[in-house]
């Protein structure tokens, strides 16, 4: 309705939303959607675009799948000799409390990929690890993966792993950013409809300019994020040397975390007290955004790092106009 950049994947977005809503208990919506097959066709730009569009739908529907780890594992498939649908990457998180391995979504029956820079990538069956549930709102299954390093099977040597690592992180960041966009859009849509129906002082609160401007700002942040992330997906499809500007995945992910949080905060202000209850859906969207912001580089750290990099490198971080032209076929 409000996109500045029209996504060619809109149709898939709708289909993904329907599949995620309509899958019964025990069924894998990714299977129903044919999503796993897309991972095998990643050289095809349409397949890649469709695979990524899933994440936006997943955010909107608060769907709970293992897609993020599978997306990150995609570049390793060939080197690991693995079939799509079997391999799911764990996400390594480091905080002041040490390093943790996180598995997103239900990973039962899958093989987990653990890639540690400097040591190459290893695999292990999920069943052979200790999966400790991490309870967060957001209708997201999260497990801390505890594994004895001796139990890991080395699968990809460091040189080979290093060759695909940046690509894996790139895909993970774009996927997570799209899911943040979807979740933020989800709660913003609720807030807009709430503002139109909730009455105070005898009229809908959406008639008050203060409330209208909160929502207009949130929509602006949402459109900004949509433009940046869909442009990144499109640039990724251009067969042109260095089409995507340097560190573009960090820019996208930093913007997603920042704008996603701002949208949630403004929506919550519009909901008032009800938005701070467990009963209302807002906190699920909000927590989903917070969880994804914390994975693959937080907005705070990426924003700071990007600033330092720009200052020191004096590079031009903009997408080149020729790449943008190629992307749109002008």
């Amino acid at each position, binding site marked *: 309705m409000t996109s500045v950049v029209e996504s060619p994947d809109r149709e898939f977005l709708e289909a993904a939303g329907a599949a995620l809503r309509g899958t019964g208990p025990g069924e894998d919506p990714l299977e129903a959607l044919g999503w796993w097959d897309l991972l095998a066709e990643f050289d095809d730009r349409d397949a890649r675009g469709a695979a990524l569009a899933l994440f936006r739908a997943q955010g909107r529907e608060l769907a709970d799948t293992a897609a993020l780890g599978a997306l990150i594992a995609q570049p390793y498939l060939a080197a690991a000799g693995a079939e799509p649908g079997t391999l799911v990457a764990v996400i390594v998180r480091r905080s002041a409390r040490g390093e943790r391995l996180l598995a997103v979504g239900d990973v039962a029956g899958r093989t987990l990929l653990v890639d540690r820079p400097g040591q190459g990538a290893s695999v292990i069956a999920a069943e052979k690890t200790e999966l400790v549930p991490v309870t967060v709102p957001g209708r997201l299954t999260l497990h801390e993966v505890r594994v004895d390093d001796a139990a890991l099977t080395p699968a990809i040597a460091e040189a080979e792993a290093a060759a695909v690592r940046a690509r894996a992180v790139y895909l993970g960041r774009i996927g997570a950013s799209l899911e943040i966009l979807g979740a933020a859009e989800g709660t913003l849509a609720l807030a807009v409809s709430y503002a*139109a129906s909730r009455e105070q002082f005898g009229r809908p609160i959406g008639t008050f300019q203060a409330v209208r401007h909160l929502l207009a700002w949130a929509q602006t942040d949402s459109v900004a994020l949509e433009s940046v992330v869909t442009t990144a997906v499109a640039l990724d499809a251009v067969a042109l040397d260095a089409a995507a500007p340097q560190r573009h995945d960090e820019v996208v992910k930093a913007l997603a975390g920042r704008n996603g949080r701002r949208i949630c905060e403004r929506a919550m202000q519009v909901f008032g007290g009800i938005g701070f209850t467990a009963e209302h859906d807002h906190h699920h969207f909000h927590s989903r955004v917070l969880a994804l912001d914390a994975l693959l580089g937080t907005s705070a750290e990426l924003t700071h790092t990007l600033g330092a990099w720009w200052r020191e490198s004096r590079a031009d971080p903009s997408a080149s106009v020729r790449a943008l032209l190629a992307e749109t076929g002008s």
Partner: protein
Amino acid sequence: MLHITASSGSGPLRDDACSYAAALDDWLATRPAALEAASRPIAAYDQRVAVTSALMGVLYDEGWARYGWPEQLGGFGGDIVHRAVMWDALARHGLPAMALYEHLEVLLPTLVALGNPTFMAEALPRFLRGEQVWSQGFSEPEAGSDLASARTRAVERDGGGYAITGRKIWTSWARYARWCLVLARTGTTESRHRGLSAFIVDLQDPGVEVRAIEQANGTDELAEVTFDEVLVGPERLVGEIGGGWRVAMHILAHERGTFGWFRHNFLTREVLDNLSLGRPAGDTLLGNALLDLAAVRASSFGGVRAHAADTVLGPRAAFVKLMLAASEQAVNDWVLASDPDLAVGVQDDHVAVNRQDYLFSRIVTVYGGSQQMQLDTIAKQILRLP
């Protein structure tokens, strides 16, 4: 050179914006003297106007600035994409601002679409060459955000033509301009937006007085313009009588949707020109500016593309306008942190320009439709709030 094969008619790169971009890039890399002169920081506004106009003359003579404009009006053909490429390239090669040539992108697309073709066939090349610049007379002392309450009157004269009387304010670059696109009332005051018409006024005609407004940032490119029975011929009517609002909306919708592309390139330039002053304490501010610039770039390129495809962006243009203002403020938040000299004194042209740009960034949420009006537009026309 490849691009100067045509003195009129279509340019050889008309249908290939990518090749145009590559060829222009090569030419700019030779560092033409006019580019060098216009790329230095210059505090004195008159001088900045002079070097930028000189550069425009060279860009026209070399053919570059003629792309993106219709052949029948002296251009080389092509569309806004060529212009988007040209200004992007100029910024990347060191030009710090479009200055008064911003009006090429604000006013000319509408004048080309709705103005008298014979008149525009003379006026457009003169603007492109930097000889005769344009200004826009919309705002009035009593008509700011509420543009439809404009009071300047145009009275039809016996024997044809109109006499314009009234006062316009915040008229950017009027002091340097030959022409002004004036929104004037041809109907009753009660007719609001339906009673407005758009006229092209020669600022050298009798009855016109231009008074510069010295601004808080030290420059004086804004002006107050008064009209006392200024006569305009019927060929200077743009659109139809009573069609002034349509002209104004055409300009504003175009400006808000695509202007972000043109202006944000110069904000990136501003950062690049100040990176050597950056300090680690400002890194988060700089990172935020980078994110905001990326958002404007992605969304405004969509606006450029929509314009090239003759698609009306409509109320969605408000998003780009809001993002652009946010990015300009984010960039200048970082400039202030990196160059605190700008706040305590003016030592040289670089500091003076930083001071001008920083202070100007505090008013970008006002001009061209205030931030509050943009938010109202989104709330009403996009979110459809009650």
